[in-house]
Every structure is written in structure tokens, then in C-alpha cells.
């Protein structure tokens, strides 16, 4: 297929534009992922193990927010960061930071909802013991996160996948500005609109390869750790 050849050519010629775009994609998505994980994993866990009125509704909301359209997230962040918006003075619109913010908003509900379910399952097993040992609050959250670490990687990878593949939100708040906020997905969208389908597909292939690489690393680390632990 032409797209694969083209992808291959772009990579072996070390096209500097391509690498700039690739690097920005990775940077934005990874930073967004880290910020989001720091928020969403404890949140999802906490919602799985505490009981308060309105808890069910919070979980429901997280689940529903998994279906929030990226364009809407983009618009909200845009309105927030626009020069006439409340955070306009920060001057973040059309910068990578804006894209990170949008991605964080987008993937936090996903990781939170999925990790909530994972921890919920573990909670069925641990809750009596934790109650008996008087383990609550922060200590319980941390213990659940540690003990469910292998299963949680899948949730995190789902979040990463959504972030790295996302275009609707980042194009609104980032503006797809060449050499500044152009990432792989917006580049693909641009080439598609120019009718350069082969180039678009080859960029897609490269992005997919990147995704595969990140996943291999994460899953590799997980397997290695699991082996060491249960050797």
C-alpha cells in the first residue's frame, strides 16, 4: 500500500517537520495523561470505596462524561482561554498548554470511570479486611491503587489512546498552527482536507506505530514487574 511506503520514507529520511510534529503530539498527550492520571485515579478509587449520598450520581456523571464530544470540550476551553474569557490574561490560547488543558478535561472522566470499575471489583474483596484493619481515607486509596496497578494500566492506556488520537478539541484550542501547535492528528486532518489521502494515511500509520510503541513499553514494564513479583 502506498501509505505504508510513504510512511516508511518519511521516517527513514528523518523528515524534521515530521519529527517536530510527532514530538509535540507525544509531549502534549503524555503531559495531559500524567496530569489526568494524578486527578482521576484517586478520584475513581475514592468514589469506589466511600459511601455518601450522591456518590452514585457522581459515578453516573463520570460515565456519561466519557461521551462528551471533543468539540464541546474544545469550545469550553476556548471560551475559557479566549482573550475575552475569564483566563484570557494567561495568553494560553493557541499554545500547547491549551491543548494539554483540553485533553485533560477530555480524558479525566474516562480514566476515572474505568478505574472506578476496576477498584470496585477489588473493593468487594478487600473491604471487610480494610474495615477490620481500620484502613480508610488516603491510605486505603493508595493501597487500592498499588494493588490494582496491573489492571489500572489498561485504563491509563485507554486514556492515552483517546488523548493521542484526539483532534476535535486540540484543533479548536490549538489552532493547528504550523511549528507551534500542529500535532499528528491535526496534520492528518489538514492533509485530508487538502485531498492528500496517502500522506494523511501514512501519518496515521506513523501515529499508530507510536501508539504501539508506547503501549509496548507500558505493557512490557507491567509484565516484567508482574514476573518479578510472582517469580
Amino acid at each position: 500500500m502506498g501509505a505504508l511506503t510513504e510512511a516508511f520514507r518519511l521516517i527513514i529520511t528523518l523528515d524534521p517537520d515530521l519529527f517536530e510534529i510527532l514530538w509535540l503530539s507525544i509531549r502534549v498527550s503524555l503531559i495531559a495523561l500524567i496530569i489526568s492520571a494524578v486527578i482521576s485515579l484517586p478520584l475513581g478509587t475514592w468514589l469506589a470505596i466511600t459511601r455518601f449520598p450522591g456518590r452514585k450520581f457522581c459515578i453516573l456523571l463520570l460515565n456519561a462524561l466519557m461521551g462528551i464530544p471533543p468539540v464541546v470540550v474544545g469550545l469550553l476551553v476556548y471560551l475559557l482561554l479566549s482573550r475575552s474569557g475569564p483566563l484570557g490574561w494567561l495568553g494560553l490560547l493557541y499554545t500547547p498548554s491549551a491543548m494539554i488543558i483540553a485533553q485533560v478535561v477530555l480524558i479525566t472522566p474516562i480514566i476515572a470511570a474505568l478505574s472506578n470499575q476496576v477498584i470496585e471489583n477489588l473493593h468487594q474483596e478487600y473491604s471487610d479486611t480494610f474495615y477490620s484493619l481500620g484502613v480508610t481515607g488516603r491510605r486505603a486509596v493508595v493501597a487500592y491503587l498499588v494493588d490494582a496497578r496491573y489492571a489500572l494500566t489498561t485504563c491509563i492506556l485507554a486514556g492515552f489512546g483517546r488523548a493521542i488520537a484526539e483532534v476535535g478539541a486540540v484543533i479548536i484550542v490549538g489552532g493547528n498552527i504550523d511549528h507551534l501547535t500542529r500535532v499528528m492528528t491535526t496534520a492528518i486532518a489538514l492533509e485530508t482536507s487538502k485531498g492528500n489521502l496517502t500522506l494523511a494515511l501514512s501519518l496515521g500509520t506513523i501515529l499508530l506505530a507510536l501508539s504501539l510503541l508506547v503501549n509496548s513499553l507500558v505493557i512490557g514494564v507491567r509484565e516484567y514487574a508482574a514476573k518479578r513479583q510472582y517469580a
Partner: protein
Amino acid sequence: MNTLRSANMPSSLLPIRISDLRLIKGDRTVLAGVNLMIDKPGITVIMGPNGAGKTLLLRCLHGLIKPDQGQITLGQLRVAGSRDQQAMVFQQPVLLRRTALQNLAFAAPEIAKSEPQRLIQALESVHLADRAHQPARMLSGGEQQRLSLARALLSEPALLLLDEATASLDPASVLVIESLVKAQSAQGTKVILVSHDQGQARRLADDIVFMSDGRVAEQSPADQFFIAPQTPVAKAYLAGEILF
């Protein structure tokens, strides 16, 4: 952890009063009005057929289940207030996905910080010192049960609840555990222990609570119970006759 109780003093959670405890699961009444008063220190053994409600009663005492009706007071406290003076060993031990030693450290973080050697001693007391760095979930059935007992004892509880804690132990381990439990009881901890093992009950019990069908059928001093059980059900149970 618990400074309310000093050695050789009776447990601060006595007397234990349970009145008209009822619990309904689905359409079955699984606890059908339990009345019980335990005011003496020492070891109380709960016996009774499978499904009699022994585990459920222990869980109510520990505050894990809220009964549908009835009241429990321990000393001056309601169940909720007494939680951190209690420890429980479950019928099926649940250990965290980490090493044996880390399981103890997790249960008693202060001790792990200030006197880490006490954790090693705890492992030694249940003869698991050489398993310290093995993943706890890979231990054999009996080893897991011993580890979860060591974990429960770390908090020096005023009330210790044991649910068939020696069910799959070898004879030597059974004796080790029994002497640990006796020593703990001698220091003033009130022990309530569920067991099907009559030999064990004879060796340990100061008094026996016999449950059947979600009720307390009989409560007697141990020596009296084994010689002359007062209820026909208890008599049949001891004889191994079918009760279902």
C-alpha cells in the same frame, strides 16, 4: 495502638450485650433474634452447625454488618465506637498483593516505622519468618491463615474475633495458634472464637455459645457443656448427628 487496656486487666469492651439481633437476607431470616450477654473475660467459643449464623454474628459484633433490628453494646460503647479496639481473623483470609512482611507493615504502619523488629517477631510467632519476603498470596492455605492471625494480633486488641482460624492448619500449627490465643487472652484480651473442632473447644473454651438456626440455643461454661449439654440440638451436634 490501643492504650486503653493494660496487661492482665479485663478487657475494656466487657460486658458484651447483644439483644434481639435480627438480620434478614432476601427472604430468609438468617439471624432470628440473638440474645447474648458475655461478661467474663477469657475465651468464648461459638459452636453450631454450618449456616447457623456464627459468622454473621461475629460480623455484626465487628461492625461489618448492620443488623436489621436489635442492639449490641461492648463495655460502654456501641459497635461503631469499639472498632479500633477489635481485631478479626476471617474464615477466608484476604491478604494484599504484596509480601508477607509488607502485609504486616501495611496493617500497622506506626509499628513498621518505630519498631520494625516487632513485625519480624510477629512472623516468628506464627513460624513464618522464612516466608517474610514471599508474595503473601502464594503462601499455602495454612500459612495464609497464620499470617492473617499475626496481622490481627499486631494491634493488641481488647477484643479478638476468630472465625475458624485453625481450620486448615496442621496439628503443630494448631497448637502454636492456640497457645498464642491463650497468651493473648491471659493478657486481658477477650477472645471470641468460632470453631467446629471439639478438641480445640475443650482445650480453649472458658464458656461455649451454641448457635442453631440463627439463634443462641445454649450458653454454658465449657466443662458443663461437653459433659451435659442442656439442649437436644447441642447434644445431637456433639454426637455428629444430622441437624439440617
